[in-house]
């Protein structure tokens, strides 16, 4: 009997609390969505089309830790790696457009790898609705410490007068690093060897060991080697606090390097998602990215946190899409 009483009184407390909680929601800035207050009512899933443990995966996990504060439901991370991100993104598009699943994307999984495929499974400009652009990472061109080049101009001069001599390394076909390498060769009018490796670690090992002449790397992953003197930086995509005196692509008159060499992260919804739910997700992501703890963690991971709203995100995707399409057409690389 006593037990039942306590349940009853617990229920009463809840009944009492509910209206207060409801009022809190009404007062909150998200008044426009009040018709759809019952979204989300069950866990929201972030589909990560990459394997666990990489910087893309960790980014989602950091967001997954803080998104519940906004959405008030649990956030689940599900990895579905394969085909450079295309497997996961395709399976996402086949799912229900109810807003309970969102997908992570970057320049490789949505632009370069898609364009290189013979039958692109989707077009990110039409098939995906951006929820927000979270962060990006600048790139730097590095040479081994034993390299004779001390400046980008020396590098270009040598490359032009000795066509086919410079051995450039990159990790994974269709990746940001691959197009970064192609952009340098194209923009600086150099002809050189392109040596593919199967991962960033192999490329790092090859440059420290002096087996290739140059590679491009994200600034945060290269900075340790630059400080120790194992790599010499020659050029970066944009001004960074870590390398304040290094020339940028713009200063050297290279048009595409900064567009293609950019490891960015954004989140996307299914194009058929109900509008009100879409708006809830957009503001939840915006608020989460702006949290100082999230910014701090993403920066520690090497990202430059730079929130952009869906419209700005679409513009950036269009720009990179065009740059890569032009390059693929010019060089003629297709996977089939």
């Amino acid at each position, binding site marked *: 009997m006593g037990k039942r009483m306590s349940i009853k009184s617990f229920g009463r407390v809840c009944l009492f609390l509910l209206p207060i909680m409801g009022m809190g929601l009404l007062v909150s800035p998200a008044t426009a969505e009040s018709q759809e207050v019952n979204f989300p009512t069950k866990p929201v899933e972030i589909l990560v089309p990459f394997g666990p443990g990489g910087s893309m995966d960790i980014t989602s*996990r950091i967001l997954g830790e803080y998104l519940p504060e906004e959405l008030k439901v649990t956030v689940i991370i599900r990895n579905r790696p*394969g085909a450079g991100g295309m497997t996961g993104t395709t399976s996402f598009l086949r799912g229900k457009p109810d807003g309970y699943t969102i997908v992570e994307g970057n320049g490789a999984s949505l632009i370069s790898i898609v364009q290189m495929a013979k039958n692109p499974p989707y077009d990110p400009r039409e098939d995906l609705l951006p929820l927000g652009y979270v962060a990006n990472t600048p790139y730097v061109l590095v040479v081994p410490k034993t390299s004779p080049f001390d400046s980008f101009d020396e590098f270009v001069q040598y490359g032009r007068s000795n066509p086919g001599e410079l*051995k450039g390394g990159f990790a994974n076909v269709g990746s940001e690093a691959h197009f970064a390498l192609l952009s340098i060769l194209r923009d600086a009018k150099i002809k050189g060897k392109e040596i593919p490796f199967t991962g960033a670690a192999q490329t790092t090992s090859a440059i420290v060991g002096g087996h290739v002449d140059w590679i491009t790397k994200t600034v945060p992953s290269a*900075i340790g080697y630059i400080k120790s003197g194992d790599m010499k930086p020659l050029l970066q995509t944009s001004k960074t606090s870590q390398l304040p005196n290094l020339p940028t692509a713009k200063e050297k008159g290279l048009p595409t390097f900064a567009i293609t060499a950019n490891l960015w992260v954004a989140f996307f919804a299914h194009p058929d998602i109900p509008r009100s739910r879409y708006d809830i997700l957009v503001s939840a992501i915006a608020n989460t990215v702006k949290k100082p703890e999230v910014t701090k963690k993403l920066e520690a991971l090497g990202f430059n946190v730079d929130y952009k709203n869906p419209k700005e995100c679409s513009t950036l995707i269009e720009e990179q899409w065009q740059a890569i399409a032009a390059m693929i057409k010019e060089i003629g690389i297709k996977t089939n």
Partner: protein
Amino acid sequence: MEFFLNGLMIALQPENLFFCFMGVLGGTLIGVLPGIGPTATVAILLPATFDLNPTTAIIMLAGINYGAAYGGSTTAILVNVPGEASSVVTCLDGYKMARQGRAGPALGISAFGSYIAGTLSIVGVMLFSPILARVGVAFGPPEYFALILTALMIVTYLVKGSMFKAWIMVALGLVLGTLGNDPLSGRERFSYGVLILRDGIGLVPLVIGMFGVSEILETMGATVIPEVFQKKVRGILPTLRDWKDSGWPIIRSSLIGFFLGIFPGMTPMIPTLLSYGVEKKLSRHPEKFGEGAIEGVAAAESCNNAASTAGFVPLFSLGIPSNAFNAVMLGALMIYGLQPGPLLIQTNPEFFWGVIASMYLGNIMLVVLNLPLIPVWISILRVPYTLLSIFIIIFCFLGSYSINNSTFDAFMTFFFGIVGFVLKRYDFELPPLILAFVLGPLVESTFRQSLMISGGDFGIFFTRPISAVLIFLAVGVIITAFIKRKPIAEIESET
């Protein structure tokens, strides 16, 4: 030494000791379950460790890794399901030992072997980290090519029956390895425009299917229950004789594992295969290898463990991860604000030495934890096989599904189970197939990278001293494989 004592003080702090224990305990459990690997576990745990002290967090994550290496041999020995790729070599003799009622000594020697190898390897990491890391990067594509070619030739040492059939299996493994995206040009091969085939065949579905599922299919068709469950289980711990047999193999394999493990482009499979080959060559009874020789288990397990510990050399002293797990660790280091790279040890000595010291303690914990577990594992074998096989099959499919959350992988596991069953029926040996499947793509990419660097000149393999020596070694291996075969056949016919 002073640094190390400082590190030991850090590792002995109650909090660090606790997380070290949690790591090795969790790692052991993950290692026992096929398919669920340490890499995915650490990735999932990572956000939860943000608030820990970086040293404590890395101590725990590293514990998961070497704990899993200990646990990985358990299913390989008991039910012929390798927990990881390099455990395929452990299966060769370990499962045979279990079927002879000697699961206890097999599990015991792999625990002790792993302990000895792990400890020796830590000493190596401590003493030589900065120097050896520089040696590791001296290996370019031509050197890797020559080394992997040697390993591929050593596959011939594993053959028990017909050499001709083994070559067919090697060829089949190489062909299966070419499926999917070409790693260097990205071109699709045999994918028929199907997205899921672009990544080729997964190692886990292949290994679990060919070893685990086919084993179940085989026993299902058999009217006799496998002898392991009828024969009395003899002994829990390795005997004095076992120790005598495995002492030197453990030491030798630890050294091979450590020195090859420091190369960032190495999968543990290569040193494990090489040390098994070396032990078989040095043994006075090579014909027992593959029939339940304890040296085979000791060599495979200790080498495996030494190599995985040695992977910390390029990670800590150069910031270059040598496998998927260390790549996650690299991300973790960045999150904790410890900049990976050549200056890591110099700028964070208390971190480096704390983690190293914790690995000594963790290895001791693992032996203490694993020895009492051996009788528990053996008692699992007393479960009626009809019941046990159901659980094995469930874990096989769960394991292969969980890698990529892919039902396709589960179907592949089933498919390879049937293929493995048919091949075994006709006396084709499966290990050469698996090993060729793993090594094939590596041989291909290093070969092509070398030629791209040299501009198509084959001289690159012979003008670089290390690669020249290794190529001669590979040729030597293949010649001795043919020379040795005759005497063994004669011995067998005499007895």
